[in-house]
């Protein structure tokens, strides 16, 4: 029986349970004048829940352990004695047999897999039938038990509400699970990487060329310092040189000078910049900006102007970051109490003097927090650098030279055809861990700065 049919069967059983329990409860209500703690739909929900949930839980457990049971059963087949000892080859043959038994096989099958396939199909069918029968019996039995509990004085609502609360808590726990998943998978794969490459060579080595890794000393060509420098140079230096003045001045103009109508139009317009997909920025950078930057470099006489320069990627990234800086600055400037501004204006200071000497210093923590958040976003940004930055890791201060970044290297390392045990692919997870830690620290610092400042005025 297919999973879909089973699903509909159980859902149908649940529906029947809901309707019949509801009807029964409604009859109670008509029969007696007593007050009920629960509505008929609560009774319906209670029985439906008992019908569906145990079966669903059983199916989830069964689905995770059935493949193992099926394989065990296949191994008792007489043909299975010819299988190679446990290892990669054995797993491959078993997988192939499973695919053939499902009709998904392709190419000419190995003879052993072909002989095992019928046994596999039989075991699978058996497992499916056991699962389906037990699930349906379970649904029926627990549903019937719940149905017998329907009495006028039974508090079905409390039961239902307890289930809803459990569901809410489970939903909230997904966030923790995701965080744990990220940390665990990064740590686990990085630990394997640092088993092959000493952590100091990775963090402090200055030579990065993962294409040619010497198997005897993989750490020699996996020093990530050039990547860290490139990321910092593009994301925290060039992009910020573009984004901070433009974002800050835009925020100042829109909060202090602009007419309400202009603010109404320009603020969303600038915010659209944050909604443009980064792949579009990347294409813009590679197609339009990079050639312009190179032509400019050649025109001013730079010798080694690369078409994949740090400047092109950084410029476009800066444009992308403008709205982050400007909306954070906007928030913190408007949060400065009007009395401070009015006091300064009343003393005879011009508006720009008020802004520079009073508003900005007062808003500074918020602005700095916003800039730190923007830096964190720029460092984690991927597509622009994948499309516009080069793959060559260099330690350079020349913005026209090619540089590479952590995120670009992660993409490059993992989209190749390498197996999952090589230091090359595992290095991507080590880079990911570094990126995660750095952005996490930046975010924490930024949020603390912003929070502390907000408290000062409230």
């Amino acid at each position, binding site marked *: 029986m297919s999973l879909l049919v089973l699903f509909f069967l159980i859902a149908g059983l649940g529906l029947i349970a809901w309707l019949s329990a509801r009807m029964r409860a409604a009859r109670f209500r008509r029969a007696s004048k007593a007050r009920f703690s629960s509505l008929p739909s609560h009774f319906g929900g209670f029985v439906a829940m008992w019908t569906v949930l145990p079966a669903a839980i059983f199916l989830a457990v069964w689905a995770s352990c059935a493949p193992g049971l099926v394989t065990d059963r296949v191994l008792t087949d007489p043909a299975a004695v010819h299988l190679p000892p446990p290892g990669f080859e054995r797993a491959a043959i078993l997988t192939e047999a499973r695919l053939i038994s499902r009709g998904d096989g392709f190419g000419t099958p190995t003879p052993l897999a072909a002989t095992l396939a019928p046994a596999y199909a039989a075991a699978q069918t058996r497992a499916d039938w056991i699962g389906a029968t037990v699930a349906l019996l379970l649904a029926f039995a627990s549903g019937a038990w719940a149905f017998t509990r329907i009495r006028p004085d039974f508090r079905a609502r409390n039961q239902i509400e307890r289930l809803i609360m459990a569901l*809410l808590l489970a939903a909230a726990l997904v966030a*923790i699970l995701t965080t744990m998943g990220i940390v665990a998978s990064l740590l686990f794969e990085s630990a394997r990487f640092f088993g092959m490459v000493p952590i100091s060579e990775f963090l402090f080595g200055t030579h990065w060329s993962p294409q040619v890794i010497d198997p005897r000393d993989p750490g020699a060509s996996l020093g990530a310092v050039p990547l860290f420098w490139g990321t910092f140079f593009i994301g925290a230096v060039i992009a910020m040189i573009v984004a901070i003045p433009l974002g800050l001045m835009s925020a100042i103009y829109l909060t202090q000078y602009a007419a309400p109508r202009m603010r109404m139009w320009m603020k969303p317009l600038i915010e659209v910049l944050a*909604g443009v997909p980064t792949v579009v920025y*990347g294409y*813009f950078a590679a197609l339009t900006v990079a050639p312009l930057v190179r032509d400019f470099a050649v025109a001013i006489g730079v010798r080694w102007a690369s078409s994949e320069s740090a400047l092109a990627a950084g410029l476009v990234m800066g444009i992308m970051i403008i709205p982050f800086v400007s909306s954070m600055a906007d928030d913190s400037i408007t949060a400065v109490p009007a009395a401070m501004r009015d006091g300064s204006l009343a003393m005879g200071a011009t508006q720009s003097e008020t802004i520079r000497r009073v508003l900005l210093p007062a808003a500074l923590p918020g602005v700095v927090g916003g800039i730190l958040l923007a830096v964190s976003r720029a460092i984690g940004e991927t597509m622009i650098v994948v499309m516009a930055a080069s793959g060559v890791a260099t330690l350079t201060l020349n913005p026209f030279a090619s540089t590479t970044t952590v995120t670009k290297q992660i993409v490059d390392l993992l989209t190749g055809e390498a197996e999952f045990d090589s230091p090359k692919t595992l290095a991507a997870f080590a880079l990911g861990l570094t*990126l995660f830690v750095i952005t996490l620290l930046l975010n924490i610092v930024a949020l603390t700065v912003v929070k502390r400042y907000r408290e000062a005025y409230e």
Partner: protein
Amino acid sequence: MTERASISSTPAPTDWRDAAHQRRMAKRYAAERRFRWLGLGAVLMSAGFLVVLLVSMLSAGLSGFVQTQIALPIDFAHSRLAIDPAKLRGRGADLALAAADLGAATDAAAIAAYGPDGDKLLSDGAWTRVRDQLKADPSLLRRRATVWVPAADRIDIAAKREGAPADEAIVAKLDAARALKTSFNSFFLTSSDSTDPTMVGIWGALKGSLLTMCVTLLIAFPVGVLSALYLEEYAPHNRWTDLIEVSINNLAAVPSIIFGLLGLAVFLNTFHLPRSAAIVGGLTLALMTMPVIVIASRNAIKAVPPSIRDAAFGIGASPVQVVFHHVLPLAMPGILTGTIIGMARALGETAPLLMIGMRAFITAPPGGLRDPATVLPVQIFLWSDQVNRGFVEKTSAAILVLLVFLLAMNGVAIYLRNRFETRW
């Protein structure tokens, strides 16, 4: 009078007409004007970047929606095609047409019409257009007909803008013979990826995007809203709920590529879900979108005034009833706005999907959640890597489609916010 006298007895008043003072004031006012102009300049420059971006995509991409076609006269009656017209009706049509060598017949017709290099004027997929025509009108087989077929890439480029001089000459000649026309490229919206830029389309990627977004929405929306309800309405204040809160806020700021690494390590390597499938892409993006939805929902729930809860409690509702019957419906517009914004971000996301292998060359739209699929931003990324010049306009055209979707979603979000925003 006495008051004035007392004022004049204070230190000498500012002499507003003093030259030094005037100079100083002029300097200050000039600084003021400069600062103001700087601000205006920054605003205009930021908006200008957006305009430049849009204009460059429009100018490069609009021609992607237009296709150059060449008139191809084919004498079906004498072409010795082994097709039985009777078979073209009903189910056997595709099989019968596949068996006949239409490619060769098309090339032969082109050589007959336009000289020895005639077949090179047509796109490699030109014969599929002939096939579609035959399917639509089997009576063509008995006569001579003119079929409009897509031109080869280089002719297409030469017809739209500057191409190689030799191609320009061919275009001029064809144009003079009225054998060239440009029309709306509906094929671009209905076909999938291909190696030939004249035959590519975005439907496969669009369908992949839709499937992925479905998975994302189905997971991120319920989980996000429920956890927001829990945290805002029921959660006790203890170390556990603090931990949940901190993780949600952190997840919202984690770089998207990290979610790709998570998807790769957990969904592919641990759970062995199929590579490059919409379901894995949707799961990965759901984890990324969920914190955005949680944060937006919490703000919307927080905005519902306590008096509403108190009133519901007052007439005997249970905590669950208060939230699900009263608070949630009132917070819904805000929750939906946040959800749309989160989904728009997920729709434009590329990096995490590259990590889970959604960069394969896929020529058929995915049939289900486990089929190999690609999504629109990844398709743009793949096309942008192509050296073939014909792909430039296709990439920009696909970007335009993506931007239209995103702007529409953001527009709906803004409309919802304005329409349903309640001030309590």
